[in-house]
């Protein structure tokens, strides 16, 4: 049995902390090392075996972590995001969450007058100092004391640093300047993240070195108060922060979703010039491109000669000589994202390229077929049809006699010819005439077309015309319930009284 000297040596306690820093040799002399080693041997004697005791605990914790990771992967998963789009400069960058505190620190630092302009102090010097501090800790703190009560200063500083990192992470979403231009959030954030911890650390140092008699308790109180103040101010910052608008981005994950997303985008963005099936070779009714000869985009010429990347580029950057407008964000901040352009390409491939087979699920009909006497509604039937065939031109910013069709209200109440356009129960409504290949002539000038046939390039299919006709003839119901109320059951055929079999 090893006989231990009383530890620590009473003499050691007389040495003051600051002086220890200077005369480390005396502290970490051979004698001290020996004492530390003996003390450790003593602990080993009343300890455990690495195998199986320690390993057992390690395995339990690792297993717990493994289960946790699988649960997170299964039930939360990885948030989908759109493909990288270098031309989308409006994107708000956010690093991985464990770098958010640095991100916020830089933002707050940038608010400081004068000093804030010297970027590299915050981006280089301060992080480098932090890393350097970590590296040199064993050489800064060379006294042999390990007990918490004897290491209040380092533990307090580390504690404040950790609280600081936590609150900076919590505040990372709150901008430093409000929409009204007030600097208040930035100032509060600087108080919580820089001023309070800074002052606390200076006080702690003063207590340890200048007033040597400062007790452990006072130092702990200082640290606790500072941490609570930091958390409190952070709470105020978060409470004052405007509710963050979460913009949900739709990410099509499966092939079917991508084809359908591409179809919707194509209908709105491309139908105007290329027609709903991509077959148009002469553009009609489009401002600035009237009569332009283009190649059909649903045939081999395009689909066989361009790969997906090339097609994406044509859509993103356009072909000025051939009349193709650029749709990417490089030319138009409101334009399509890289992912959206990809969906359009996927849609074109699977819909028109005969080397690709479209999955069954992607071919679901645009609207449920109508039974005899059934009245279509806006939400179930008209909306998808309008989106596919009409909205590409009939929206803001296009040449369309100011007739917009992006929602129910607009369809009924906009347009230069609103008085005659959609008249409930009237088959002479302009709307119904033009979709049935009958242009409306200008009453004041019978040689001029007031409204051409719609859509200009290709007549609608009879079942689509039928949907519009039934809808207008029955008073344009908006919801499925309203339409169901108008359902006229087919006139029942006169039946012979029951019991008598019909011949």
């Amino acid at each position: 049995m090893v006989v231990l000297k009383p530890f620590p040596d009473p003499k050691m306690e007389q040495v003051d902390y600051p002086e220890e820093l200077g005369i480390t040799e005396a502290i970490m002399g051979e004698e001290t090392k020996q004492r530390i080693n003996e003390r450790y041997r003593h602990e080993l004697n009343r300890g455990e075996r690495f195998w199986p005791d320690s390993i057992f605990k390690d395995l339990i914790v690792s297993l717990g972590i493994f289960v946790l990771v699988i649960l997170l992967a299964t039930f939360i998963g990885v948030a989908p995001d759109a493909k990288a789009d270098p031309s989308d400069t409006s994107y708000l960058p956010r690093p991985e969450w464990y770098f958010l505190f640095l991100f916020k620190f830089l933002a707050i630092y940038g608010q400081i007058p004068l000093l804030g302009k010297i970027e590299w102090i915050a981006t280089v010097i301060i992080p480098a100092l932090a890393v350097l501090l970590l590296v040199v800790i064993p050489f800064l703190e060379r006294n042999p004391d390990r007990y918490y009560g004897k290491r209040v200063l380092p533990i307090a500083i580390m504690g404040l640093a950790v609280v600081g990192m936590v609150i900076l992470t919590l505040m990372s979403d709150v901008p430093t300047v409000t929409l009204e231009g007030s600097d208040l959030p930035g100032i509060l954030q600087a108080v919580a993240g820089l001023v309070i911890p800074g002052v606390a650390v200076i006080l702690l140092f003063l207590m340890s070195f200048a007033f040597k008699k400062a007790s452990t308790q006072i130092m702990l109180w200082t640290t606790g108060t500072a941490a609570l103040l930091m958390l409190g101010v952070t709470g105020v910052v978060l409470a004052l922060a405007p509710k963050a608008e979460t913009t949900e981005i739709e990410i099509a994950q499966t092939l079917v979703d991508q084809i359908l997303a591409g179809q919707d985008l194509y209908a709105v963005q491309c139908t105007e010039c290329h027609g709903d099936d991509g077959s148009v070779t002469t553009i009609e009714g489009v401002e600035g491109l009237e009569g332009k000869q283009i190649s059909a985009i649903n045939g081999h010429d395009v689909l066989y000669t361009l790969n997906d990347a090339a097609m994406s580029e044509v859509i993103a950057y356009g072909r000025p000589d051939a009349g193709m407008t650029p749709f990417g964000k490089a030319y138009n901040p409101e334009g399509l994202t890289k992912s959206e352009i990809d969906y359009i390409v996927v849609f074109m491939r699977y819909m028109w390229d005969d080397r690709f087979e479209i999955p069954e699920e992607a071919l679901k009909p645009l609207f449920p077929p109508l039974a005899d006497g059934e009245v279509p509604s806006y939400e179930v039937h008209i909306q998808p049809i309008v989106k596919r065939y009409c909205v590409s031109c009939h929206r803001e910013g296009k040449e369309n006699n100011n007739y917009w069709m992006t929602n129910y209200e607009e369809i009924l109440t906009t347009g230069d010819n609103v008085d005659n356009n959609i008249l409930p129960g009237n088959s002479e409504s302009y709307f119904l005439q033009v979709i049935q290949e009958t242009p409306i002539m200008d009453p004041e000038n019978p040689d001029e077309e007031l409204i051409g046939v719609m859509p200009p390039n290709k007549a609608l299919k009879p079942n689509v015309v039928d949907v519009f006709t039934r809808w207008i003839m029955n008073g344009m119901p908006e919801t499925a319930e309203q339409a169901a109320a108008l359902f006229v059951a087919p006139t029942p055929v006169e039946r012979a009284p029951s019991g008598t079999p019909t011949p």
Partner: protein
Amino acid sequence: MAMILKKLYNWLDERLGLKGIYDNILDRPEPRGNWWNTLGSASLFLFILQGATGIFLSVYYTPSPDHAYDSIQYIMDGVAFGWLVRGIHHWGATLMVVIVFIHMLRVFVTASFKYPRELTWLIGVGLLLATLGMGFTGYLLPWNQRAYWATTVGTQIAGTVPLIGEFILKALRGGTDLSALTLQRFFAAHIWMLPAVLAGLIGIHLYLIIRHGESHLPTKED
């Protein structure tokens, strides 16, 4: 049967020195254990988990701007249990950063970095930085909006270093802008350079831990 196993063991023992490994590595005395001391091995476990899932992901992943995004879509949608493997890799990374950081705090609070374990601490700091480096390089690989713009800003920050900033920026990006080269070198750093550094440092770290033993929880006597 028992005879054959015994012979096999003896044959292996003669050549591998299994008894020596058992005596020196497994059958060691340790101070009375506590649960905080399991975080180091938990970090090691996560490193192995990340390695295993990462190797699987590299089978399908393509490090080019044209295909990176789509190859991950394929892993998520087309490969059996690909979503699970990627999910584990994603959350494993988050947990690894958390666990490594808490491990560092534990070592700091119990002052385990003091004599004779100063070098273990130094290696540990290297491991922490390399883990963060893995997080930073891995974040770009999905080539989505988050990844692209976070890396743009991250490398910009590295570019603010006085005098050599321009050089660092270009070295990180492989040019003035984020491009195919950036993705390629982040990929190389993520699957070759940093894992090699990590594995080497982990080896030294483990050797030092076995040499000095785990530190005991300090009491008033320490």
